[in-house]
């Protein structure tokens, strides 16, 4: 498995009623004779990234060897700072349905769109100039009419007719959103016209005579501003669980089956002959850590539950704008952009300071 996940320095102890050793003590000065200062080669050796599962919508990967703050930073950036395109402005010409304008506009805003945000620029807020570089225009025109009697095919004679059977367009779905190409967009998006990622999202329900006619403008934004711009359904991580058996106090063979039932299925193997209990390394990550073992007196001292502090199992589900395997690189790109911004500002400050020979290369404290 991974190099030395059994190193006790990397463990967070999970006990019956509390958690021990939570923080990372891997910094210079904590262990007297060791130098834990930043070392890129050592980091590169310890770093281990492995993609485990990949589908069209989600990805599961391991990130080993980084500090919790870095993993958390990636998680937060995935949720809040990777840009997407979503509908922001709704211009209603006609809405005679029972759904209020604002409720309908809210629902439409939440529909995820299948557009690559790198083609677009951010639209500066409160500026009227909507160009083809920063806005996408959709139209929603639906009228509900009654089907002529001849076209109706009834299922059972006695039951009430389903609305879809007797009315046209009684359900307004996200598939009814039509894209209106503006300016250069018709050439740029010729091969992949913008559409909602899922055509079956119900937006409103209509009856004959009701009509919805509106123009929708979609712009680029980030999840920090509103959750509709978040590219992920969820982005979570958990730490790798560990079950460590105490060799000095093995599980008595008559309780082996009960011991196995205390853990998630597949985590504990029982040798069929000797009834000795052992941990299945491959299924260890399925352990849900429900601490059932600590409830039984006969297993006291036989086992320790731990988590590995720097082994992060990420599970990221994409909304569809980005392919799931592209999400982590996008978040790394966002983080690096932020670092570049701060770094250029800090370097400019340093240059300013160094221009004055009186100050010795350090920043003056501002008078509060």
């Amino acid at each position: 498995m991974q190099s030395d996940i059994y190193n006790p320095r990397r463990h967070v102890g999970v006990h019956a009623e509390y958690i021990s050793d939570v923080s990372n003590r891997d910094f210079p000065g904590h262990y007297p004779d060791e130098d834990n200062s930043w070392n890129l080669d050592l980091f590169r050796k310890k770093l281990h990234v492995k993609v485990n599962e990949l589908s069209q919508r989600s990805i599961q990967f391991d990130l080993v060897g980084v500090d919790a703050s870095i993993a958390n930073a990636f998680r937060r950036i995935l949720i809040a700072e990777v840009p997407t395109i979503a509908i922001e402005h709704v211009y209603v010409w006609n809405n005679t349905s029972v759904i209020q304008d604002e409720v309908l506009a809210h629902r439409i805003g939440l529909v995820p769109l299948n557009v690559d945000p790198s083609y677009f620029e951010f639209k500066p807020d409160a500026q009227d100039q909507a160009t083809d570089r920063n806005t996408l225009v959709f139209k929603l025109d639906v009228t509900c009419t009654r089907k002529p009697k001849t076209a109706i095919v009834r299922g059972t004679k006695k039951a009430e007719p389903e609305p879809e059977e007797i009315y046209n367009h009684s359900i307004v779905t996200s598939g009814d959103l039509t894209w209106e190409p503006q300016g250069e967009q018709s050439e740029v998006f010729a091969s992949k016209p913008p559409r909602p990622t899922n055509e079956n999202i119900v937006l409103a329900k209509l009856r004959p005579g009701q009509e919805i006619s509106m123009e929708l403008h979609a712009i680029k934004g980030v999840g920090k501003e509103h959750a509709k711009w978040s590219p992920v359904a969820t982005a979570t991580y958990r730490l790798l669980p560990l079950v460590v058996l105490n060799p000095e106090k093995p599980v008595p063979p008559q309780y082996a089956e009960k011991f196995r039932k205390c853990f998630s299925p597949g985590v504990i193997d029982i040798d069929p002959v000797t009834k000795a209990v052992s941990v299945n390394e491959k299924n260890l990550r399925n352990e849900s850590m429900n601490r059932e073992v600590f409830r039984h007196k006969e297993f006291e001292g036989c086992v320790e539950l731990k988590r590995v502090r720097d082994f992060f199992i990420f599970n990221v589900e994409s909304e569809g704008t980005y392919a799931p395997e592209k999400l982590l690189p996008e978040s790394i790109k966002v983080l690096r952009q932020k670092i570049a911004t701060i770094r250029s500002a800090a370097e400019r400050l340093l240059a300013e300071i160094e221009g004055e020979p009186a100050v010795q290369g350090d920043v003056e404290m501002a008078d509060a």
Partner: protein
Amino acid sequence: MKNPKVEFCGYSVPHPSENHINIRIQMYDNLSALQALITALNDLDTLCETIEGAYDASLRSDGIERWDEKS
């Protein structure tokens, strides 16, 4: 934190509604805190680059269980 010359390093958010943070960096031996900040940002940048490289290498390798997810 990983810099042995840093005596103190911390940040605070004065008010959650405002988008400001205060970072305090204090060094031993009268060294430049601003230089330490720039070094730290560079190290963070190389860290991100390394992670991205390892991730791309893992994507290209075999052993990924690919499955069909109906949305």
